[in-house]
């Protein structure tokens, strides 16, 4: 995998005449950035913008990689919904990216990824036969198969139960080490556990929040992470109450 770049976004996004956000966002290279904020503030729009996806608005500004190269083809994406194709097996789903580009997938890479996300025994099953956590592990393996230096995660664990979510967070932190990761989340605990950088987004600004001093990913009982989570939650609560 090539060295991961950092990414900077600066600009204004409008939907009709309304400004959704006017922001500067910096994603440090090889680190996890977690973006928190109220629903509708534009977190997912920001992510979609950098990915080049439809946002329903107009962006005036620019986003650049710190190494000066373009971003096309360097970002892989994982959404809240696993987006596994029901008619394909887990193995086939993991390498769907290669098939969609008209390439022959390297099945040894697929088997290695299946092993890393602990799905080797379920490789030939259809997604319907898997639990929610297993499906998200398959989606994570599919993201890894793309082998891109930058990974965007849009609330990928929010539909999972608490235990599975915690396991998935640890797994994602392990397998995505060394990549530039941008995680959009609603969960202060998730941000406090995984983020090297935490940003709280509002219509007015991007507030860089002090991340815990302990190395990420943090243990479930990490005191600094718990304190950070509490402060984040209080801040989000106060913001919601004020609006």
């Amino acid at each position, binding site marked *: 995998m090539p060295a991961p770049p950092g990414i900077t976004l600066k600009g204004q996004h409008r939907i009709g005449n309304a400004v959704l956000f006017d922001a500067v966002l910096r994603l440090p290279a090889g680190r996890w950035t977690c973006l928190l904020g109220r629903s509708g503030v534009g977190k997912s729009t920001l992510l*979609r913008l950098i*990915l*080049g*996806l439809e946002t329903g608005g107009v962006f005036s500004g620019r986003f650049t990689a710190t190494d000066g190269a373009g971003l*096309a*083809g360097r*970002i*892989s*994406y994982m*959404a809240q*919904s696993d*987006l596994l*194709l*029901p*008619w*394909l097996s887990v193995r086939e789903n993991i390498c*769907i*990216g290669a*098939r*969609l*580009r*008209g390439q022959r997938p390297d099945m040894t890479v697929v088997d290695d990824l299946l092993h890393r996300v602990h799905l080797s025994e379920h490789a030939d099953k*259809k*997604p*319907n*036969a898997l639990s929610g956590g297993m499906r998200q592990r398959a989606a994570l393996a599919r993201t890894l198969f*793309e082998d891109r230096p930058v990974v*965007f995660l849009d609330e990928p664990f929010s539909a999972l139960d608490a235990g599975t979510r915690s396991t998935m967070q640890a797994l994602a932190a392990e397998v995505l080490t060394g990549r530039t990761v941008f995680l959009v989340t609603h969960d202060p605990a998730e941000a406090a556990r995984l983020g090297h950088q935490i940003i709280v987004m509002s219509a007015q600004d991007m507030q860089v929040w002090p991340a815990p001093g302990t190395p990420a990913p943090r243990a479930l009982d990490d005191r600094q992470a718990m304190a950070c989570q509490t402060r984040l939650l209080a801040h989000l609560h106060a913001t919601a109450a004020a609006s």
Partner: protein
Amino acid sequence: MKARDILLASLVGVGVWQATVWVTGAPHFILPSPGRVALAAFDSRVLIAENAWITAVEVALGLLIGTFLGVVTAIQLALSKTAERLMLPILVFTQSVPVFALAPLLTLWFGYGMASKIAMAVLIIYFPVTSAFHDGLTRIDRGYRDLSHAMAAGKYHFMRHVQIPNALPSLGSGLKLAAVYAPIGAVIGEWVGASKGLGYLMLLANGRAKIDLMFASLIVLACLTVILHVAVGALAARLTRYAQGVET
């Protein structure tokens, strides 16, 4: 539709038919009894079988060709926005012309043989198959499009690996409609001008006041349609199970 349900419905139908004959006392050249029709069917079994075979071949070929053309058109429309903009209104407009009104023209163009009946069946099923499949191809979860964009998917590969499998249940719905319409198309073609087929045999029997033979032909036609409906229904269910990833 289960075989037991079909059998039960048939028994009820025959019962109502026989009761109507008894209650109204209609003469056999207006409404023959089920027994009389069964006898006529047995006596003319070779004649009916020969003509039923012709109609069945017309319907089967009409279905195959119409489905092929419908599938190709739907894929083309889904791949090209320009084709979609130009072709969809034309397709909808052509549906405002009753296909039955075209039967004499098709007979003129394709003759009295099977070709004009196959063309009729193709015309009548082409739109439902195209429309249903096109709907399935274009009605796709935005998430799949986003993911494919991030993966730098080619549009033909996206069509092959995502859109087509995703649209198979819709194609199944179109095929079920086609299975009902195709025999109508073929028989109307036979009415307008033919020397073979169940539609032709019905007209011939009617002209010679052999109403029992006409009824027998009609019942055989209905049986053909039901068999086709059941077979296509099973295929549609299989397509849906495949698309949903349900093990078969």
